[in-house]
């Protein structure tokens, strides 16, 4: 599985991006990625539609997460204000890897 986290916005305006190939990291950590993905209900997050919303909180972050496995790609864009605790855990876990 290939998982990419990107972060834009924020006071600094400096973007952040990280790609993790779970076949190339410690198997325990790869298992952890699977676990936080499931517990965050990532796949149930509604795909972003730019016509329906924007990040209206000045200087808050916007996160995009892309999960690619077996040729299928799921991509979700989430505003910082819309993060629930489980999605926060997912982002935090990926950032710490």
């Amino acid at each position, binding site marked *: 599985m290939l998982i990419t986290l990107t972060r*834009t*916005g*924020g*006071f*600094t*305006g*400096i*973007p952040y991006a990280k790609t993790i190939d779970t076949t190339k990291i410690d198997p325990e950590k790869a298992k952890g990625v699977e676990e936080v993905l499931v517990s965050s*209900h990532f796949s*149930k*997050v*509604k795909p972003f539609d*730019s016509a329906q919303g*924007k*990040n*209206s*909180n*000045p*200087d*808050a*972050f*916007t996160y995009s997460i892309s999960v690619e496995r077996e040729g299928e790609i799921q991509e979700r864009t*989430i*505003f*910082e*204000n*819309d*993060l*629930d*605790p489980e*999605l*926060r855990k997912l982002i*935090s876990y990926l950032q710490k890897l």
Partner: protein
Amino acid sequence: MAICFIVPPHILSAVVKNGNADQKDWAEKSIEISESIRQKRQAFDSLRSLRQELAPAGKQRLIYSANNSTDLPGVEIGTETTPPTDTAGKEAYTGTGATYDLYWTTYQRNSIDNRGMSLLSTVHYSEKYDNAFWDGEQMVYGDGDGQLFTQFTKPIDVTGHELTHGVTQYTANLDYQDQSGALNESFSDVFGSLVKQQSLHQTAAQADWLIGEGIFTSSVHGKALRSMKAPGTAYDDPVIGKDMQPGDMSGYVTTADDNGGVHINSGIPNHAFYLTAVAIGGNAWESAGKIWYETLTTKLKSSANFADCAYATVQSAGEIFGTGSKEEKAVEEAWKKVGVI
């Protein structure tokens, strides 16, 4: 503050009713968390309103700590009469005070809402959090990751910047997208810089015109996050990249990221303000600052673009300093130099 979750409450209720055991468990937990946050926030807002009614008129600062959680506002660590002892708390207290003072003494604005709203700041938000933001009701500051960024309370202009997002919210309420979003960012940089200049007693010629100076650790090749004097030159680092801000319309960046590049294209109106301020001379908060304040609070619609802002600032300069004044000419010349008019 609207606390929004990804799944709307009516869907969560439907999942509780119709989902399988696992789905029900998740939906119930989500509802529980949402309700708990809502109740806490309501209780806090009531307390804040009561304190505001009872407090004497004038500057009212409240400093909280999230203790590295994401719960807002967190626990109280300082008030107007009992300043915090924590370093980040002290910095937020000082920066908030300097911002209140600029708006009150120079523009006779009584706090963010011009009605004496208490100024609430939460420090130590989340873990290694590289950001500061205005959430619609309060300021929030991270401690930085320690490797690239220090604590976001450190530069005084960061506090001025965030509080100005509040002022914008209560006045022009500029849409946070594309050119109006870049103007929203630019007004925050302008008044953030003016807070710093006034606190250091610097004239336009003496000021460094940097935004976020001191926010980088020594491992980053950069002076600050943005330069109003020379957009695009604030940092150039192998890890975080290069400052991408343009100083005129020839470098305008079209992008879907960051709400249409609001932190990039703000370099253009930022530079227009700098050119105006140095052309007029003296203390920028007393000249160009007054023109920009008048424009923000009385002239702009939420959908304003760069050209709207340019013509509105020329009009404000004429109204404040007189038609044909050197101030009015300086504003017009500045917007011409950055290619907006």
